[in-house]
């Protein structure tokens, strides 16, 4: 089957769904399940659209890397939507567009087409965050997002006028011929910032606090895991294939990313609200993922994205549900949350420990492997900063965990639906299994590292 269906079918479904509003969410389930099946069946390589060969028309690029991304995004949307069917039933059409937008973002091989999908998914994200009922924060998100994508557009237009093509593979070849990196600094900076806004890298991400800090069981995991992982994959594609940072630009980007990790963890340390702690940890993880891509550690960055998406889904959902029932997200007022919810507590603990990178959980395997590769690359100072940040991270997470486990005074009552527990338990089990049994992770290693090869074969 053609990979273009991954975008076309959700779009078709979205257009149809406004005629049958009530069934839009079921249409979404059908489409995501279809998409997941389609990911396995889709042929790899360059997919032509409109019958015009690549530099002329738009084309899609399907490889193992993008398939992993598609699988993750579609499955997560399905799970999150299914768990929120009761609480947020009206978002079927928007979620269909989210699926189309993010799939397009991951698949497209055309810079301007990428911008279009960036806008589709961006606007869909604004609408998702509208469910927070905090229009001001959403408005800020919208303005910053619009600025970010404008910067991206400016960068890509400069690239077009320099190299005369919009096709990514073509562009990479042209750039390789040019070999004057000095000239590329301006467009790359603009594009990196544009992507950085959406991927919530540190200095460009002030929208995150308002958005995730007031998120609910729906918008929290959508933004923190679905969007974050899609943007992570996209950022990886751009950084490893197109940007190939060099010289001063590389230094500045590295500094930004390392500072992003350290400062975000410190900010989380200074937070007293549970959602803020989670969101700052997400920001740190986003910077970490970008940092790995900059250093060319693709495979472990991919795993980090997946593990982070799974854990953050669980964590945001648990905390946001509790916040909804209790009415406050201060850690203090959520004390003893798990005393009554043992299963939820264990799952949350597993997810947190995985994010912290403690052994027996998949986060540890990932952390150790990418640190080893960083050491191979001679980045001992980066390692030192990452690890120092991980001390801060460890402390605030342990504080949070212990507060949530041990009640003080009155027990609070939060009820989690059985479906929540079931899905979360599966995720926790996955984190645990792959933490202990890592052979399959190594196996995938060889197939993903071939992102570059597709480019060379054109």
């Amino acid at each position, binding site marked *: 089957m053609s990979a273009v269906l991954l975008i076309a079918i959700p779009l078709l479904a979205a257009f149809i769904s406004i005629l049958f509003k009530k069934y839009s969410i079921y249409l979404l389930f059908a489409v995501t399940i279809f998409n997941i099946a389609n990911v396995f069946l889709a042929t790899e390589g360059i997919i032509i659209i409109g019958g015009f060969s690549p530099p002329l028309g738009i084309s899609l690029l399907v490889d193992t890397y993008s398939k992993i991304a598609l699988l993750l995004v579609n499955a997560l949307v399905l799970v999150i939507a299914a768990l929120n069917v009761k609480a947020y039933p009206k978002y079927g059409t928007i979620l269909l567009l989210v699926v189309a937008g993010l799939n397009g973002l991951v698949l497209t091989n055309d810079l*301007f087409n990428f911008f*279009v999908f960036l*806008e589709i998914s961006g*606007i869909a994200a*604004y*609408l998702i965050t*509208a469910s927070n009922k*905090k*229009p*001001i*924060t*959403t*408005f800020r998100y*919208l*303005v910053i997002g*619009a*600025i970010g994508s*404008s910067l991206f*557009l*400016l960068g890509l*237009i400069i690239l*077009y*006028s320099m190299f005369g093509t*919009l096709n990514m593979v073509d562009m990479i070849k042209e750039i390789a011929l040019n070999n004057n990196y000095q000239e590329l600094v301006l467009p790359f900076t603009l594009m990196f910032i544009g992507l950085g806004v959406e991927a919530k890298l540190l200095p460009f991400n002030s929208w995150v606090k*308002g958005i995730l800090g007031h998120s609910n069981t729906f918008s929290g995991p959508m933004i923190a895991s679905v969007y974050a992982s899609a943007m992570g994959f996209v950022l990886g594609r751009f950084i490893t294939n197109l940007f190939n940072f060099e010289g001063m630009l590389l230094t500045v980007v590295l500094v930004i990313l390392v500072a992003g990790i350290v400062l975000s963890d410190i900010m989380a340390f200074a937070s007293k609200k549970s959602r803020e702690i989670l969101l700052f940890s997400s920001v740190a993880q986003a910077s970490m993922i970008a940092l790995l891509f900059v250093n060319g550690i693709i495979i472990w960055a991919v795993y980090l994205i997946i593990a982070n998406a799974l854990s953050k889904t669980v964590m945001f959902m648990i905390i946001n549900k509790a916040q909804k029932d209790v009415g406050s997200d201060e850690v203090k007022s959520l004390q003893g949350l798990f005393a009554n919810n043992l299963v939820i507590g264990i799952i949350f603990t597993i997810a947190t420990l995985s994010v912290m990178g403690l052994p027996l959980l998949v986060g540890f395997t990932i952390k150790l492997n990418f640190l080893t590769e960083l050491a191979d690359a001679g980045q001992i100072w980066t390692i030192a900063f990452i690890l120092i940040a991980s001390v801060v991270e460890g402390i605030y997470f342990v504080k949070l965990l212990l507060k949530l486990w041990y009640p003080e005074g009155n027990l609070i009552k939060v009820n989690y639906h059985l479906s929540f527990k079931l899905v979360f338990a599966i995720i926790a089990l996955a984190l645990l299994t792959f933490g202990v049994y890592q052979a399959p992770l190594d196996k995938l290693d060889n197939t993903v590292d071939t992102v570059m090869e597709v480019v060379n074969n054109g």
Partner: protein
Amino acid sequence: MIQYAAILLFVLGLYGIFISTNTIKMLVSLNILEIGLNIFIISIGFNYQGIAPILSSVSDTGLIYVDPLPQALVLTAIVIGVGTTALGLAFAKSIYQKYQSFDLNDMEESL
């Protein structure tokens, strides 16, 4: 020169967003930014000898056209800008309905 004016329009839009606290003014600034960007996009395809890329017959040879691609792109960019602006205005309106104000400073505490 027009190209440079477009860039200045772009940064003027950024400046507008930087200084304004009023949601509507911000959206206006955003539009100024986008217009600057659109003019810039068009400008990179311009050629002093070029004519509009519409053929009167297939056999027109030897004519120089301006680059048609940026024009196509700008069409898309404009529509996207319209969409963003519409949504932004809708949010501004719902902020107004909630706080009776367009000025973000007025509701700083409510966050």
